[in-house]
């Protein structure tokens, strides 16, 4: 099967996945106790106002009609109106999306680069002090709760040492760079706004390190395991017998093959981080989608929650598609086997 057919098939599957997601989120939002109309008008409003509000929100109709209305809106690019902010959910999500993407990209960059490096070190110096130290670091990573790690990092680097800012994307006194991509680092680079660049990078350090740490641990453990496996294989022995230096064997012959399973995890991780930035964004007051959705949850703002879920699901499926497209580049045997 060629690439375009594969992509078309995957996009078709995406539609099915999204349909499933809408069904689940819609049902859940209507099973959960709590009345958005009541939330909106307050506890003291009379029954008449409540009924009017329910009618305005479409909550008076049968559930399946509400669902079909919702789907109809989706087809037309309408994710509904946020109950809390009274603005279209799509606009809200789009305005918060870049902040989350920026945070996720930095966290991923950190997790992937350091994770692969640690995994390599660990496998190369297997059963030495380096290996043990790396593995302890990795085990800490997978077992430390994010909220605790974030708070400790804030206490240490923000409160006591004062080295790094603790909240937001920029110093409050600095103007955001001209909006081009919405990623402050990229925008300030493009527009040559060095003050905003420095401030936005400093603001990224703590949240992205905290967010990336768990993934770093997973990647390091995976790279270690697959490197150790690959280094035992026959072609590594052939390379040794042909006089290829050990360092070259490790970074060229072995790493290339060990990265194949790692790429899958990196893809999944990216989706996970996008959706999982909720805690990090809350701790560091990062104005991204995660923070938006937390605020929406406390307000029972179902259209907003459903919109967020839909966006995360879409990104997830798309990233996995990209990963599948990357495989043939890494592993020639997969070429054309999709």
């Amino acid at each position: 099967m060629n690439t375009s057919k594969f992509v078309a098939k995957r996009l078709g599957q995406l539609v099915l996945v999204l349909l499933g997601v809408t069904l689940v989120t819609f049902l859940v939002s209507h099973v959960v106790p709590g009345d958005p109309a009541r939330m909106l008008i307050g506890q003291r409003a009379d029954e008449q106002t409540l009924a009017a509000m329910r009618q305005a929100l479409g909550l008076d109709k049968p559930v399946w009609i509400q669902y079909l209305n919702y789907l109809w809106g989706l087809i037309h690019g309408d994710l509904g109106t946020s109950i809390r902010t009274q603005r279209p959910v799509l606009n809200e999500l789009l305005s918060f999306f870049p902040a989350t993407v920026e945070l996720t990209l930095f966290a991923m960059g950190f997790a992937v680069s350091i994770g692969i490096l640690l995994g390599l070190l660990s496998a190369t110096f297997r059963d030495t002090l380096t290996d043990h130290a790396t593995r302890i670091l990795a085990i800490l990573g997978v077992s430390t709760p994010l909220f605790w790690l974030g708070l400790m990092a804030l206490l240490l680097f923000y409160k006591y040492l004062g080295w790094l800012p603790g909240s937001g994307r920029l110093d409050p006194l600095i103007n955001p760079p001209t909006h081009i991509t919405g990623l402050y680092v990229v925008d300030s680079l493009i527009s040559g706004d060095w003050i905003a660049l420095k401030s936005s990078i400093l603001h990224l350090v703590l949240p992205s390190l905290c967010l990336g740490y768990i993934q770093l641990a997973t990647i390091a453990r995976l790279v270690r395991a697959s490197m150790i496996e690959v280094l035992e294989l026959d072609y590594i022995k052939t390379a040794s017998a042909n006089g290829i230096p050990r360092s070259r064997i490790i970074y060229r012959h072995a790493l290339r093959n060990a990265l194949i399973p790692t790429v899958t995890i990196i893809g999944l991780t990216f989706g996970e981080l996008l959706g999982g930035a909720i805690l990090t964004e809350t701790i560091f007051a990062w104005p991204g989608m995660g923070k938006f959705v937390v605020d929406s949850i406390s307000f029972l703002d179902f259209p907003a929650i459903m919109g967020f879920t839909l966006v995360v699901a879409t990104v997830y499926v798309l990233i996995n598609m990209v990963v599948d497209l990357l495989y043939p580049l890494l592993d020639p045997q997969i070429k054309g086997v999709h």
Partner: protein
Amino acid sequence: MEPLLKIKDLHVDFLSYAGAAHALNGIDFELFPGEFLGLVGESGSGKSLTANSVLGLLPRKNAVIAKGSILFEGEELVGKSEREYQALRGKKISMVFQEPMNALNPAFKIGSQVTEILKLHQGVTAKKARTEAVRWLARVRIPHPEEIMNVYPFELSGGMRQRVLLAMALSCGSKLLLADEPTTALDVSIQAQILRLIRDTTDSLGTSVLLITHDLAVVAQTCQRVAVMYSGNIVESGPVSNVLRLPRHPYTKALLQALPHLDGPIKALQSIPGTVPNLLTPPSGCRFHPRCSVAEKRCQADRPKLLSVAENHYVACWRESHHV
């Protein structure tokens, strides 16, 4: 003539929790320039271990050369550093392995794997390395070598892969080729082709070959001289015609009797009673004595030395050489 490779009293130990296993128990042999020597024996007799010791490819963690010497072109290899070995591997001494299916890196094209070695050892440009690589692929009789340069290993058959590996092993002018069961994993018709190819190519290059095999037929077809190994010792060595026709060691005799014959009367195959000894607790004296039909008292007590019984023919057996 000076030998190209001279192994003297080589002892290799495997360290395990249960103690040291003396996997090579003092072996001696010489290999002369241009010679084709077969090393035969059962699994676990130490054939591959011998070849791996020469190339410094013993598993670093648990195998050590306890004693002995390996001289290559008069130079001591035992105790060389990893870096010194690297300069030797693929350039002066090469090795091909048993499993061609997994011996090439699945992620790189054939061309990239062959040229990598040429660039490394000969310092030639990428372009020159490519021409050289194509020439070598043609030399090991690979059809359409230009096209093969651009395919991945999984697109080739086992026989073709073994040819590629042979080209890689010989391309930098190695003087010694260690061939560790190079045809065992291939089917019989391909086996003969590959053996002939190895013999013809190394003949024309003047490369010496140490062919490791458990197949006496392979030895008969290709080798000039043969050394028979049993449990970490060489028990008999000499010209192929002498050893296979007039074996002197009881183990060699038993091996030859275990071969099926297509001509002659049909009878049950003879097998050697018992099993290969446990290397952690090897038998005293001659390690073959518990399975030997003609063992005497002193076979239990003392280990026989490899001594000459005829011209170039050596046997390590109390009943053969020592009472002469």
